[in-house]
């Protein structure tokens, strides 16, 4: 993991940039924010204008969605470069965009203390079978916290966790769940607080070891990426396998263990979360789960799979540009002919629900209703189709 701009320049192919601008022509943010251009950031780096980058706003605007690096002919890994710049800017004490008044970040930082004791099991549905140890650990992520902090928009994030547990029980699996699970550290890492990230990672690794898990199941793609790539970067090869719910469900379907006996008669479109899709190349598994549900008519958006557009927010750093992008993405979902938008990322879901709950000025969004669509997580829909 690179923590300085210069190191990142060597590792992320920044110096090979052709200055062709394909990144900026692809960037969803650059279309709504004329001040932003990945190519020009790279150009500044090559010209040695380090201060301009580290003290500029652009470094915090990047969505790290990887659409630019997906298309870059020179394989410049721009989001990784940006991450290193954020880490260095933070180390230098440069202040940055503060998300939600710093509340989420403060909560995440609080969890870095080994003394903090949490009770994270209150959301587990009555009668569900869970355990402290076991082969399969369900790493829940911050779902219960989201429900409290984002209460206003009714994210109902724990419904995702509840669906996962119910499904696991139905297929005969008693998952281990950690009462003192920590934040995975994703947001702190991507906002430059690498030391806090390392503390969280260490605490989680120790907790996971105590459960004896061979498989760690994730329903959050950000956590999935963080454990699978960033923990592995930190600790070397992990002593357990990390899988996302969509992949796990897809396996269960193959083994004939997951059966959908309730028909869901809806036109469904799937939104690829950046971390699950482009970062970890999981495109087929969620679609396979959806198309295994009877009654579901699976649609595709104009931009899907590796071409998918980001939900507009990275590490909760949200602004009016995010809203514009979200509206655009929701419109695209509606245009596909679907009446239900399914995603496999609790955060994408929150961001979409958030923008739909807002009263946006008519001058900005003339027809906000065009962008209204039901949003649900893949696990929830799967549970419904199993009659759970």
């Amino acid at each position, binding site marked *: 993991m690179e923590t300085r701009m210069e190191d990142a320049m060597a590792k992320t192919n920044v110096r090979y940039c*052709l200055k*062709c601008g*394909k990144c900026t*022509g692809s960037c969803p943010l650059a279309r709504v924010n*004329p001040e932003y251009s990945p190519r020009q950031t790279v150009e500044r780096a090559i010209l040695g204008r380090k201060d301009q980058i580290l003290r500029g706003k652009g470094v915090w605007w990047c969505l790290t969605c990887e659409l630019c690096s997906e298309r870059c*002919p020179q394989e410049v890994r721009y989001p990784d470069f940006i991450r290193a710049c954020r880490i260095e800017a933070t180390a230098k004490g440069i202040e940055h965009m503060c998300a939600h008044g710093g509340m989420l970040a403060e909560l995440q930082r609080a969890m870095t203390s080994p003394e903090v004791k949490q009770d994270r099991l209150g959301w587990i549905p009555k009668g569900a079978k869970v355990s402290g140890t076991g082969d399969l650990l369900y790493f829940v992520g911050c779902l219960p916290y989201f429900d409290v902090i984002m209460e206003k928009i009714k994210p109902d994030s724990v419904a995702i966790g509840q669906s996962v547990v119910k499904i696991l029980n139905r297929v005969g699996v008693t998952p281990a769940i950690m009462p003192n699970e920590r934040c995975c550290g994703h947001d702190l890492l991507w906002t430059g607080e690498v030391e806090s990230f390392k503390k969280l990672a260490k605490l989680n690794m120790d907790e996971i070891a105590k459960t004896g898990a061979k498989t760690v199941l994730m329903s959050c793609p950000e956590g999935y990426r963080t454990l699978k790539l960033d923990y592995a970067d930190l600790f070397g090869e992990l002593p357990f396998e990390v899988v996302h719910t969509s992949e796990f469900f897809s396996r269960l379907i193959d083994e004939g263990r997951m059966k959908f006996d309730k028909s869901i008669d809806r036109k469904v479109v799937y939104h690829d979360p950046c971390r699950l899709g482009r970062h970890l190349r999981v495109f087929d598994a969620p679609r396979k789960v959806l198309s295994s549900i009877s009654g579901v008519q699976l649609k595709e958006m104009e931009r899907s799979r590796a*071409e998918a557009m980001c939900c507009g927010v990275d590490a909760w750093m949200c602004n009016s540009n995010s809203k514009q992008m979200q509206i655009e993405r929701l419109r695209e979902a509606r245009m596909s002919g679907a009446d239900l938008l399914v995603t496999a990322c609790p955060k994408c879901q929150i961001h979409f629900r958030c923008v739909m709950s807002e009263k946006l000025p008519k001058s900005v969004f003339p027809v906000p209703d065009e962008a209204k669509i039901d949003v649900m997580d893949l696990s929830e829909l799967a549970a419904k189709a199993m009659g759970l």
Partner: protein
Amino acid sequence: MDEKPSVLVIGGGVAGIQASTDLANRGFQVYLAEKLPSIGGRMAQFDKTYPTLDCSICILAPKMIDCFRHPNIKVLAYSEVKSVSGSAGNFTIEILRKPRFVDAARCTGCGQCAEKCPKKIPNEWELNMAGKKAIYMPFPQAVPRVMTIDPENCLYLTKGICRVCEKLCQAKAIDFSQKPETVQIKVGSIIVATGFDMIDPSKFPEYGYGKYKNVIVSLEFERLICASGPTGGHLVRPSDHQKPKTVAFVLCVGSRDVKAGRVYCSNVCCLYSAKDAILVKEHEPDVDAVIFYTDLRAYSKGSREFIDRAIRDYGIKYIRGRPGEIREDHETKSLTIWYENTLSRKVEKLQADLVVLSVACVPRGDTKELAKVLGVELDEYGFFKVADPLYAPLDTTVRGVFACGFCTGPKDISDSVAQASGTAAKAAEVSMMYARAVPRAVKKGG
């Protein structure tokens, strides 16, 4: 071995034709093996050449005919090289001659059979933008001028019914009894001139090729703008056959692209796209032509002047920037191109009705198999590897086997032809050294 020293040329494009004719004029016996039913290669598909704006087939066709009629050249069209043994000075080659099911000695190429043939199939030579019949002439200027029956689509050969062509043919040229035939030849040296293919444009989903009808590749544009092409040379877009208002050309699609495995520059796109844009203007002066480029690589004499002419005399607009993505308006089928104008440093979008992608040029699809047969090495991109890029750019890694034109890496027509003449000289040297008889030059076309 023949009394005359002999050479096998593989590939009947402009390079193969040039090498064959050079050698034949010096009195060598030449076998020219071409995979397709006609010689001509890529150049036969182009509408015009740059920088002179000559009609491509008009300058190539006489060369094709000269080559075919040359007493020292045996054109083995519709044939594949199956095996090679021996060494420099003494190669034994087995060539598979595919059956045309038409007697070449009798067929006059009148085409009546094709008119009445009931089976319509896609025309690959026209990049599937037009159809053809199961009995066909590959293109109007094809050489040899012999009809060919497609065995996979002919109703008689697949289902045992029809035989309309046979009943109709006054020359009695249809012969369903033809079988694949293997001929053996002995030569002193071999020249490879197999040319190029294009990278699969669906590798770039951001540009929508295959999904959006009005996104085409430049070879398709060549056929589209060509008077003998599928639209009779009318500039129309594929979705509705209407004249476009704006045509955009996107360069470097897969070229200079590490991700696509093509780090090299395809060498010809900067110039041919200027030529294509000029053709747009010559056909329809009121249509806008826009070229998206990464860097203008117009390095040879006359090239920069050609591009300047495109800008100054024809009003072609150049934008520096590789577009990020192209999206279709589902109703109008027009396209929005998103790009950063890297000179004005602004993100902009352009509405175009037709987009032409200059996709990377790559080795022919069957290069690997041919290399195996010849025992030669390929380079990291799958082109034929040359023995030394500086001192032996025409030698392959096997003595007595030479290569010219695009099959060793990107080259334009003029460079390919120059190389072809070079390989002819090299091959002549090897073949002569081992031959018993000394060749006697014959008059060109004599």
